[in-house]
């Protein structure tokens, strides 16, 4: 019997039991939908993150000092050890283009004239080149030592009247002290500029480490007036130590990055650095590029995905058992029909093919519905967290293959039972 005929007959008997067939495929639908949804989300997440690393960021290495055994993402277990002098010295190294600190200053609120909005994200303090030129939609980078800030669109648009370049804002930092900042630039994206921030979109205010972090860390309080422009006095006035350091290599060439990373590490771990007094057995300096940090994130995502796929596999297994069960019922129910077919000349393989086809159809329908549902789920999810949508098409193909496979596996035993049915017994069956 040709496969098309099997398909026609099998489809007919499936249609004869619509509800039963629908319920049978549900397990497969759920399993496949889960896989597709999470894989779509994962792929979109990945595209969203990787897509955000511009070439300039690629030449950055992000460093912090932590217990070497600490596991985790950027800044995990980091301790404040880097001084301004360290930063300057690292910046002067031949292999290094620039080096600056990175810190967040906790805040309570931001005011634009009369209007005040809550701001828990803090101020992100770093060096001017942290906001890369091509990331600026308006204005310019802030300057070190000035009371200037660059805002991202989410931060600029949170006021009734959008903040523009030239506006002056008042920031209330944790503890109630107030700082003024002049907005000198607006970025083109609300997503994070580096792995230190995370990549999600949220309102962010970028400021120079000097004066904002130095006066904060050295406990100078609100006294730091507008004369904070003096770099050296700020460095001397306190023991401002940075949790994190960003080192820019001359290019994003791997050799350059490694050279910058090595010389920075060497310097910081040598006795010449201020950081060295804390380093040693307890703390070690870690430098990572965003790609490497993303890899860590990727590993977490992969782990999560494997977990979901594992759960989905269980669901598929349950689904297969469901199909197998229904097929067995169906074989028993149709014993007489099988007998008739064999009596009029159906070969064992015809009967086998018929029931196997039926199981495969159930599996494939489940896979197709599951794929559709999963894609919708992934789409809604990606929309919701505002990620570029990426459909992993190879998984869609894979899902169909899995559907066929599940059908074959689930249908094999019932179909074999059907094929072996003795026609005389079957015809006598009531």
């Amino acid at each position, binding site marked *: *019997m*040709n496969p098309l*005929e099997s398909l026609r007959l099998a489809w*007919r*008997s499936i249609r*004869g039991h619509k509800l039963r067939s629908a319920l049978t495929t549900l397990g497969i639908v759920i399993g496949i939908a889960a896989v597709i949804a999470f894989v779509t989300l994962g792929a979109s997440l990945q595209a969203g993150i990787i897509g955000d690393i511009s070439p300039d960021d690629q030449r950055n290495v992000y460093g912090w000092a932590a217990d070497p055994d600490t596991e985790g993402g950027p800044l995990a277990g980091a301790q404040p050890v880097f001084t301004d002098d360290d930063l300057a010295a690292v910046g002067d190294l031949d292999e290094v283009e620039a080096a600056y600190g990175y810190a967040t200053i906790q805040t309570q609120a931001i005011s634009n004239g009369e209007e005040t909005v809550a701001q828990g994200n803090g101020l992100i303090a770093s060096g001017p080149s942290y906001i890369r030129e091509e990331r600026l939609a308006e204005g310019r980078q802030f300057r070190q030592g000035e009371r200037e800030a660059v805002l991202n669109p989410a931060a600029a648009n949170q006021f009734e009247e959008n903040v523009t370049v030239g506006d002056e804002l008042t920031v209330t930092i944790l503890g109630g002290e107030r700082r003024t900042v002049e907005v000198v630039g607006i970025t083109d994206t609300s997503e994070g500029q580096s792995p230190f921030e995370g990549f999600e979109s949220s309102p962010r205010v970028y400021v120079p480490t000097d004066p904002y972090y130095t006066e904060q860390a050295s406990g100078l309080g609100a006294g730091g007036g507008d004369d904070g422009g003096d770099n050296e006095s700020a460095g001397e006035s306190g023991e401002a130590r940075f949790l994190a350091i960003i080192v820019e290599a001359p290019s994003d060439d791997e050799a350059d990055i490694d050279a910058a990373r090595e010389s920075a590490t060497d310097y910081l771990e040598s006795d010449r650095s201020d950081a060295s007094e804390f380093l040693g057995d307890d703390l070690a300096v870690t430098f990572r590029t965003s790609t490497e940090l993303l890899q860590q994130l990727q590993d977490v995502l992969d782990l999560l995905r494997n977990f979901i796929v594992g759960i989905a596999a269980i669901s598929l297994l349950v689904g297969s058992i469901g199909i197998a069960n229904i097929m067995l019922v169906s074989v028993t129910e149709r014993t*007489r*029909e099988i*007998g*008739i*077919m*064999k*009596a*009029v*000349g*159906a*070969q*064992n393989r*015809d009967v086998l093919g018929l029931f196997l086809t039926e199981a495969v159809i159930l599996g494939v329908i489940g896979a197709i519905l599951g794929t559709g549902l999963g894609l919708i789920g992934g789409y809604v999810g990606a929309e919701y967290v505002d990620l570029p949508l990426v459909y992993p098409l190879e998984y869609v193909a894979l899902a169909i293959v899995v559907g066929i496979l599940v059908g074959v596996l689930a249908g094999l035993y019932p179909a074999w039972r059907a094929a072996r049915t003795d*026609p*005389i017994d079957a*015809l006598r069956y009531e």
Partner: protein
Amino acid sequence: MATAETAVSLSDVRKTYRIGEPVHALDGVSLEVPEGSYTAIMGPSGSGKSTLMNLVGCLDTPTEGEVVVGGRAVDTLDDRERTRLRGTEVGFVFQTFNLMPRLNAVENVALPQLFQGIDRTERRERARDLLERVGLADRGDHLPNELSGGQRQRVALARALVNDPAIVLADEPSGNLDTDTEAEILDLFDEFHDAGTTMIVVTHERHVAERADRIVHLLDGRIERIEELEGDGAVEPASRTGSSEPTEADSE
């Protein structure tokens, strides 16, 4: 007809079921069925009629002895060859019709050809032809449960004939039918017989059996006696003479 070859031959066939006490459903049956003959099989319930039909229909194999159908010893064939022989050489008509409930009349009739790999359009054409021959031209699209008992039996009959079998086996084909419908079916049997098909019909009823050339009486799994009937048209001598008259007229 006297020179006809043997369509079915059984030699010392035994069929024994062993469920506790062995039951000899057939206990040494030898029978030759000439090609183109019309044989009726009678006997009390449990005498082995259906068992015999299943053997001749290649649905079953004997415990002992040899069954030859269409020149081939059934017990030497493997399952596949036996199935093929069953599909092409014999047409089975069952007392309970045994139609596929979800297939309409045309599809039911065409079913045996499906397993012979015959093309769909060709199958349907042939099925419609046969339905027309059994007088059901207008019922092709009906499901079995939309047909009367007699109509169902005629569909079953058409199905039995679809592969042009040399032998048609009918196990109590009219058991469920009223006299009029029964007569219709039996007339169709006569038609096939006249067309050269070997007919073997199991029945409990004398008047059904009398349409045959001979009646084989079974008792307890053995052939009790074989009753040869005069001519092969004992029941309808009128139609026989009616049909032979013009022939004579032509030859004159």
